[in-house]
């Protein structure tokens, strides 16, 4: 029976198309399927989605291994799963399945090294210098020296030989106590501001002066103000200057410290330095929610400053991704609604203002949102 052109594609037909749509398959009328596909937007969208899921699944394992997190067991755990109870192993495997630090280590133990290379590659390890006896002999010599030193150090670590004199217990205890107390005092007196206190100062500066209309993640409400000169210029209190100094010192010693890079990005936002903010936040690596929102602010403000619509699009895309993960994120909703308002997309703006007010119907931010919504409805001028 000929396929009815009005009937949407079945799962089998979609699978056939996603597999290439070339091979003959029983029950699939290729010509009729393609004819329907040409005229049906919905089925084309379903096919695109199916292909993108297949592609997405295929690429999931290509992410680079991540840093260890607080939940990760020791590295050696993955080599000795047999030592654990069944329940513990089940929990460990569940952790490894979703952890990009431990998963690659588990994979290393599970891979069969004799299965390392496809036949076409031959055995590339045979060509390595480390496969040659001379190289191995040199390495063995070095390992022998290092292991001898490690072995001696292990003996020392175990304790002094019997008969060797040691200081009296009380004198040793007193010396240790003094050292601990002195170190603690010095640490308290000389320790630099913590990340938490630095962020508090930065967020308080935003609240106090609200240098731009977008919401900064984690910041309390601050009313909009008229700013003389460039948007984003902030009056720098001593505390704010101290915070900047703390950030600079920390990043000098640890240039890739992500939370401090984000703090620098925030300071740049408050100072109206959009390009520097973008650069600092990009160096945070794969963006978490707050970094994505802050980057969107930087792009949105740069778009306004340089009259560059492409930057607005980037900002909208970033906020869209945040909302795809959490559609009720109030900060992302507020900021996107504001950006739609600013870029004169009233329908989109109105929808987002409604969504935002459904999440946060009361409070200072909501009151401001209602004014923006009204402004959006009345239009420019």
């Amino acid at each position, binding site marked *: 029976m000929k396929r009815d052109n009005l009937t949407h594609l079945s*799962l089998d037909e*979609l699978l056939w198309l996603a597999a290439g749509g070339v091979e003959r398959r029983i029950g699939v009328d290729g010509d009729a399927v393609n004819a329907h596909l040409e005229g049906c937007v919905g089925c084309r969208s*379903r096919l695109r*989605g*199916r292909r993108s*899921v297949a592609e*997405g*699944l295929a690429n*999931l394992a290509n*992410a*680079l*291994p991540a840093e260890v997190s607080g939940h990760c067991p020791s*590295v*050696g755990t*993955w*080599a*000795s*799963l*047999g*030592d*654990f109870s069944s329940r513990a*192993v*089940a929990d460990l*495997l*569940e952790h*490894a*399945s979703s952890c990009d630090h431990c*998963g*690659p280590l*588990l*994979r*290393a*133990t*599970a*891979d*069969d090294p004799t299965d390392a290379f496809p036949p076409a590659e031959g055995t590339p*390890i045979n060509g*390595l*210098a*480390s496969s040659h006896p001379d190289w*191995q*002999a040199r*390495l*063995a010599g070095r390992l022998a020296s290092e*292991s*001898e030193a*490690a*072995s001696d150090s292990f003996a020392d*670590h175990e304790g002094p030989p019997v008969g060797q004199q040691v200081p009296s217990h009380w004198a040793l205890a007193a010396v240790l106590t003094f050292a601990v107390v002195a170190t603690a005092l010095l640490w308290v007196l000389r320790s630099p501001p913590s990340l938490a206190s630095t962020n508090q100062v930065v967020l308080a500066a935003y609240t106090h002066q609200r240098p731009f209309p977008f919401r900064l993640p984690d910041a309390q409400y601050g009313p909009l103000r008229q700013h003389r000169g460039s948007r984003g210029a902030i009056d720098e209190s001593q505390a704010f200057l101290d915070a900047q100094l703390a950030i600079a010192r920390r990043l000098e010693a640890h240039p*890739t410290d992500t939370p401090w890079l984000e703090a620098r990005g925030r300071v740049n936002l408050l100072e109206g330095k959009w390009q520097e903010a*973008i*650069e600092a936040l*990009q*160096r945070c*690596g*794969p963006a978490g929610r707050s970094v994505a929102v802050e*980057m969107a602010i930087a*792009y949105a403000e740069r778009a306004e400053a340089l009259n560059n619509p492409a930057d607005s699009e980037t900002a909208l895309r*970033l906020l869209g991704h945040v909302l795809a*993960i959490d559609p009720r994120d109030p900060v992302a909703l507020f900021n996107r609604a504001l950006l739609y308002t600013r870029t004169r997309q009233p329908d989109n703006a109105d929808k987002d203002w409604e969504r935002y007010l459904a999440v946060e119907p009361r409070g200072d931010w909501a009151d401001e949102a209602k004014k923006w919504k009204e402004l959006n409805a009345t239009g420019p001028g």
Partner: protein
Amino acid sequence: MARQVMSLQDLIQACAEGGDPAAWEEFVRRFQALISSVVFRTARRWGADSPALVDDLVQESYLKLCRDHMRVLREFRPDHPEAFFGFLKVIAANVVHDHFRALRSKKRAADVLPLDPATTCGIDALKGIERAILLREIDAILDSLPGDDRGRDRTVFWLYYRQGLTAHAIAGLPTVSLTVKGVESIIRRLTRFVREQITDRPLGEAG
């Protein structure tokens, strides 16, 4: 005793006692293929597998055994020799990961970032978010699976797709209690389920 006929236990003990180049030479000879295979495959996943680099990382893997007072060698258990092989693999893989993570951190600090938003946001940041979105969406779908084996099946699915283990490797894990065909069957079933849930929303509904 000739090194070549030494038991694994005796060989490790000779190396752990320190200072015996011949014992170490035999150790390197025995484990060279294992360690260099792991290093080569792991480095390739990072997109770099030059012979000189692989040799350096192989050497680093051996040197790591001597750290922490050679604890790995001292704690070798003759009743579980396979755990030792597994540990060598984990050490080698971790050495490679640490090397490239450190390189990536340095590179990120040194990069001059272009102004063009199409190449920024990094593209890295967007890809990271897109991956997170897909993972979250699929995880929510797997959460809706019926049956008592949902937890096990979900772990199998992620070990296969997210961590790249083969069905054979998954079947060999302790307590998995599945044959290779059993693992493949779960993966096929869940893959179809996920695709159906993601793509077959009723037509006319916004995506």
